């Protein structure tokens, strides 16, 4: 266009008439130009407006992008978290699998154990039967031991008893001999002869008593249980020992108190207990300056306690625990079997009682026997 305008101006210069037209044309052209300028201005303004809008829009977009980025970051985080959880889940799953496998194995193992257990139960049942058999055997042996002990006690008693029997037999011989002499001398008075014979009879019954007591004691009788008077048991044991104790000048005192203790048990066995204890006490006081044995008892509720104390030198410290062991003896070989106290222990145990010994230094030994009393008889004798 500028070329056109320049051409026009040149034309106008060259042609004055033409100049007016040219001017008009020019003016029109300026107007057009102005219009175009205005239009352009409007367009520019519109453009500016649009630009402002665009900028606004752009800003909003940027904001949205930022927000989007945040969202994306969040999303990324979530994704990562999810991935981690997935991983964790995966490992848990693997662990679970392991556990399941283990549990399966455990189950197998349990099954095996159960089977083994059944075997063991079977074995156990057999063992129990065997144990019961052994126990029975042991009980039989114990009974045999008690019998052996009784015979041993009898053997020990024999010397004393022989002396005891010898005396009545000797006296019988003398009394009967006297009677024979009286008859041979033709003594007419019968009273004298009868007197001699009566004396002889008394001695016969004395000897019979000793023999029958020994027989009862030595008999392997079935062990029965019945209410028995402890006082009587002690008296009978003393009667077998009396001669020996008397000859050794051993002073024996018995004090069971006013009660009459009755225990449920076997008279012969309990008698043996006291014979064994008396035999021990007899030997314990042999060298002592004062020879005494004291049997004392006290009856409480449901039980009786009997103490047998001697004035001997006591039990050497450390031996109290062993004295109840079978075959343990402090006596010389051939003097004691070592069975007495172990049998005593066994018998008292079988009677549901206890036996213990106390031997303070410098004093004699005291054996303490604790026995349950027989339950009081409930049956009332109605007339």
């Amino acid at each position, binding site marked *: 266009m500028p070329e056109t305008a320049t051409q026009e101006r040149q034309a106008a210069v060259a042609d004055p008439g033409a100049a007016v037209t040219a001017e008009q044309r020019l003016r029109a052209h300026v107007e057009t130009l102005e219009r175009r300028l205005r239009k352009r201005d409007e367009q520019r303004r519109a453009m500016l407006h649009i630009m402002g809008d665009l900028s606004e829009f752009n800003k909003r977009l940027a904001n949205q992008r930022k927000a989007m980025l945040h969202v994306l970051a969040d999303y990324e985080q979530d994704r990562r978290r999810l991935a981690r959880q997935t991983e964790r889940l995966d490992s848990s799953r693997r662990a679970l699998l392991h556990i399941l496998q283990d549990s399966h194995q455990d189950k197998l193992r349990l099954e095996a154990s159960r089977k083994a257990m059944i075997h063991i139960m079977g074995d156990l049942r057999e063992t129990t039967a065997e144990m019961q058999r052994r126990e029975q055997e042991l009980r039989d042996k114990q009974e045999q031991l008690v019998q052996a002990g009784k015979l041993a006690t009898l053997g020990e008693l024999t010397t004393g008893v*022989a*002396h005891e029997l*010898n*005396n*009545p*037999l*000797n*006296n019988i*011989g*003398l*009394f009967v*001999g*006297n009677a024979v*002499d*009286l008859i041979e*001398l033709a003594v007419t008075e019968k009273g004298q002869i009868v007197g*001699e014979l009566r*004396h002889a009879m*008394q*001695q016969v019954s004395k000897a019979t008593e000793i023999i029958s007591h020994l027989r009862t004691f030595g008999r392997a009788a079935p062990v029965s249980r019945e209410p028995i008077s402890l006082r009587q048991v002690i008296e009978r044991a003393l009667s077998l020992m009396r001669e020996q104790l*008397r*000859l*050794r*000048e051993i002073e024996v005192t018995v004090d069971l108190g006013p009660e009459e203790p009755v225990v449920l048990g076997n008279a012969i066995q309990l008698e043996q207990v006291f014979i064994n204890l008396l035999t021990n006490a007899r030997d314990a006081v042999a060298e002592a300056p004062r020879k005494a044995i004291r049997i004392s008892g006290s009856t409480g509720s449901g039980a009786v306690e009997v103490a047998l104390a001697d004035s001997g030198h006591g039990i050497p410290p450390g031996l109290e625990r062993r004295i109840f062991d079978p075959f343990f003896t402090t006596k010389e070989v051939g003097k004691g079997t070592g069975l007495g106290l172990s049998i005593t222990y066994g018998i008292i145990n079988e009677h549901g009682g206890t036996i213990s010994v106390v031997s303070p230094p410098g004093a004699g030994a005291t054996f303490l026997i604790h026995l349950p009393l027989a339950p009081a008889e409930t049956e009332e004798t109605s007339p």
Partner: protein
Amino acid sequence: MTTTLSVLIVDDDPALLQALPQALRLRMGEVTVETAESAAAALERIAVQDYDAIVTDIKMPGMDGLALLAEIRTRRPDTPTLIITGHGENELVVRALRGGACDFIQKPIDRGYFVAALYRAIWAHVQNRRAKDRQLALESCAEELEQIVQKLEREPRAVPGRAES
């Protein structure tokens, strides 16, 4: 042995103290039998009386027969003592004989044997005593003779006739 014999029997069994004296009275006739139930009682009797023989059991509570025997030997050394022992107690028999017992009697007592042993012991005792008496008499005779001899020796000049020759 015309006088009544006296015997002491010591035993702790009352029945024996009844039977044995009766046996002695029946078998020995003139005999006085006394009894003691223990060695201590026997010693009391011995202190006041001199027996012709003492018979004692060996086993007694308290002082036993052997201890009693030893006491008798010191207090009445001349009295014959017999010991009663149980059957088969040989060791005790030997100890009794060593302790001065003049004999032993085993239970059960055979009365014939017992009486014979007692007689023998008493007879030995009497013989012994008689021998001692005679010895004493002889000794006094010998002493008398010796005194006469001494007297004669002290008075040689008193012999008549010597001075005159």
